[in-house]
């Protein structure tokens, strides 16, 4: 039997050296060895009332799977995780565990929590190395469900429904399924081979994935019903880029983070000219924003050959919404952080190329609606930073392409889809979940929404 490991700190995660990795797109965190994993698993106290599980949006049976790892029964560990989480290799890498399960871990009071995310990733990676076998689906219901959008919400909903015996088709606008996991989160944080494998897994379960399908244009939701589908799930994400509406935003060399990341990740601009899509990354790059998207953009810019990369964020480090691990990694790699700084205008040359960004210094005032202290500009503190490229990563909104083309679908005042707690919308037979309902959130919350909706669709179709 395994004995308890009383170390107060997490077993370190092997990682690529910052100097080396800032020049390549290979994965940064290398993953635990079997020995690391067993060691870390032995730190878990296997609490009677595991508080960690309260922090997990999909209720992974955390102590149970960790116990299996401690006992070197990795197959059982992954089986336990997969009872409730269909994308563990993804979640183990990108979930904000420090705000979820790990925050609630009892060990947090005495040192580091158990490295739950790292163990989840280990179990999933172990399984992948063995070759994943997709279970044969036996039950058949002869009812059809259409899923619009193939991000974590759509993929999870599709996976759950196919397991319940439905005929499931996923309609994706891009040429590759995966949503943000493919076009947004970079290779060095989430290798695309992993996402592909997750998609292949649900395809093996029987889900049909149709790419190049811009729904609302090529087919409407009503067309889908007419084609014989009995229910529809909308998981189209929050993909509409926001700009700052400051002068100079249309200069050459100014990108939305969506465009910058899509060119690099989905279109593989890092292999240009071997691949055909280019991206312009100058010597000096400014990324405006403080979330994961900003960190990803900054770290991509560095890997594309930028010499100096700046994060420009209007609040202070404490308020920064990016995952701690990501901002730490960014710092190690040499990204320069300008906190309490807000752009006021972008400056261009006579050919229309960016040459600088004017910013104003901010200070923190009273708390705002989000509870964070509101940044207010310090009058007369404007200054100019020379830049060749500017990436705007200040958030996204709901894309109206599909929702506008769908009659009878209620939206809230921001344009997100209104649903009940199970994801049911105002339109008969239509569910929605993920970022298109909540606004930009997390992979795991999108998955949770896909799961709930699948259950609710199942109940609805049983009575139909």
């Amino acid at each position, binding site marked *: 039997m395994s004995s308890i490991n009383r170390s107060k700190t997490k077993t370190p995660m092997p990682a690529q050296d910052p100097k080396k990795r800032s020049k390549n797109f290979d994965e940064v965190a290398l993953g635990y060895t079997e020995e690391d994993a067993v060691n870390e698993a032995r730190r878990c106290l296997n609490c009677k009332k595991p508080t960690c599980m309260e922090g997990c949006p999909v209720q992974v049976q955390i102590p149970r799977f960790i116990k299996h790892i401690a006992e070197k029964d990795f197959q059982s560990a992954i089986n336990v995780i997969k009872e409730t989480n269909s994308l563990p290799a993804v979640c183990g890498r990108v979930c904000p565990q420090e705000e979820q399960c790990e925050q609630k871990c009892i060990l947090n009071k005495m040192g580091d929590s158990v490295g739950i995310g790292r163990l989840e990733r280990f179990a999933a990676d172990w399984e992948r190395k063995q070759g994943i076998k997709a279970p044969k689906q036996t039950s058949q219901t002869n009812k059809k469900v259409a899923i619009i959008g193939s991000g974590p919400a759509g993929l999870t909903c599709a996976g759950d429904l196919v397991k319940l015996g439905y005929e499931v088709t996923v309609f994706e*606008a891009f040429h590759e399924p995966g949503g943000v996991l493919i076009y947004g989160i970079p290779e060095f944080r989430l290798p695309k081979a992993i996402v592909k494998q997750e998609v292949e897994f649900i395809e093996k379960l029987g889900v049909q994935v149709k790419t190049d399908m811009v729904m609302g244009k090529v087919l409407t939701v009503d067309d889908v019903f007419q084609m014989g589908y009995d229910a529809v799930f909308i998981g189209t994400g929050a*993909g*509409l880029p926001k700009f700052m509406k400051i002068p100079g935003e249309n200069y*050459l060399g100014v990108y939305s983070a969506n465009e910058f990341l899509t060119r690099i990740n989905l279109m593989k601009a890092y292999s240009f000219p071997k691949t*055909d*899509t280019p991206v312009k990354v100058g010597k000096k790059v400014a990324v405006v924003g403080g979330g994961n998207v900003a960190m990803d953009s900054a770290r991509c810019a560095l890997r594309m050959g930028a010499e100096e990369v700046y994060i420009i964020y209007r609040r202070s480090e404490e308020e920064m919404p990016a995952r701690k691990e990501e901002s730490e990694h960014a710092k190690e790699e040499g990204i320069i952080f300008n906190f309490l700084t807000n752009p006021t205008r972008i400056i261009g040359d006579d050919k*229309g190329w960016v040459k600088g960004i004017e910013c104003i210094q901010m200070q923190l005032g009273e708390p705002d609606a989000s509870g964070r202290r509101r940044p207010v500009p310090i009058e007369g503190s404007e200054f100019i930073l020379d830049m060749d490229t500017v990436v705007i990563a200040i958030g996204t909104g709901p894309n109206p392409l599909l929702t506008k083309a769908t009659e009878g679908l209620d939206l809230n005042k921001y344009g997100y889809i209104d649903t009940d707690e199970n994801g049911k919308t105002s339109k008969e037979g239509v569910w929605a979940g993920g970022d298109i309902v909540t606004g930009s959130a997390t992979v795991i919350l999108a998955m949770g929404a896909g799961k709930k909706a699948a259950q609710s669709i199942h109940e609805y179709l049983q009575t139909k």
Partner: protein
Amino acid sequence: MYKILERKDLAPSIKQFVIDAPLVAKKAQPGQFIILRIREGGERIPLTIADYDTQKGTITVVFQEVGKTTKELGTLKAGDHLADFVGPLGQAVQFENHKKVLGIGGGLGVAPLYPKLKMLHQKGVEVTSIIGAKSADLLIMENEIKAVSNKTYICTDDGSKGRHGFVTVVLKELLEKGEKYDEIIIIGPPILMKIGTEITKPYDIPTMVSLNPIMVDGTGMCGGCRVTVGGETKFACVDGPAFDGHKVDFDELMKRLQTYKSEEKTAIDKHEGGGCRCHQ
């Protein structure tokens, strides 16, 4: 995969493909475009729908070999396949209660002009057209345009066919003669649309243009296609590609189109140079 059913060489560097894409054809309307990708690793490029046949389930596109992707596209034949063919994208154009319309197409712009004039013609609108190109051999779709126009003027920059000079010269003459139109449509290189809209402006005739900025997704998710129209930023792929020409900031559009100039050259050099080197 989307099959190329037919290939026609309209001019030395201008090709026309008929593509098998039944779902796209079912919804296509004049003014819309598609995005295609030739193969894995390829670029996504937008092309305006030049014609469509709902019955046969086909879309016609016309392109000029200018960049690496269009050059590669030009090597494909009937029977070959495209990896991706996405659409119909963008807004369809609407014409209400028009009686008389003038359509102007320059160079490759004649292709996207055609479905609009065809629709107007079918609605019984009186159509005048002016089409032009650098020289006679680069003039495309002359017969198609004539078939949907009550009157057609032809211009070439070098005088090798029709009037010697730009299409805008004829436009100016018609307006100076006192011709009246409910709307004027100008499609072609940005500089042509800029000059054309400057000519129509004093006459206060609504003038529609169709813009061709750089695009990636074509669904409004990247903002790469942004253009300034009436002082506001618009995404051409979802708000356009047709806009009120009197409000478009053409200078900005022309600058933004230069973004990847040097990369385009690298890609073409590699494409053409690479082709030769394998035989050495």
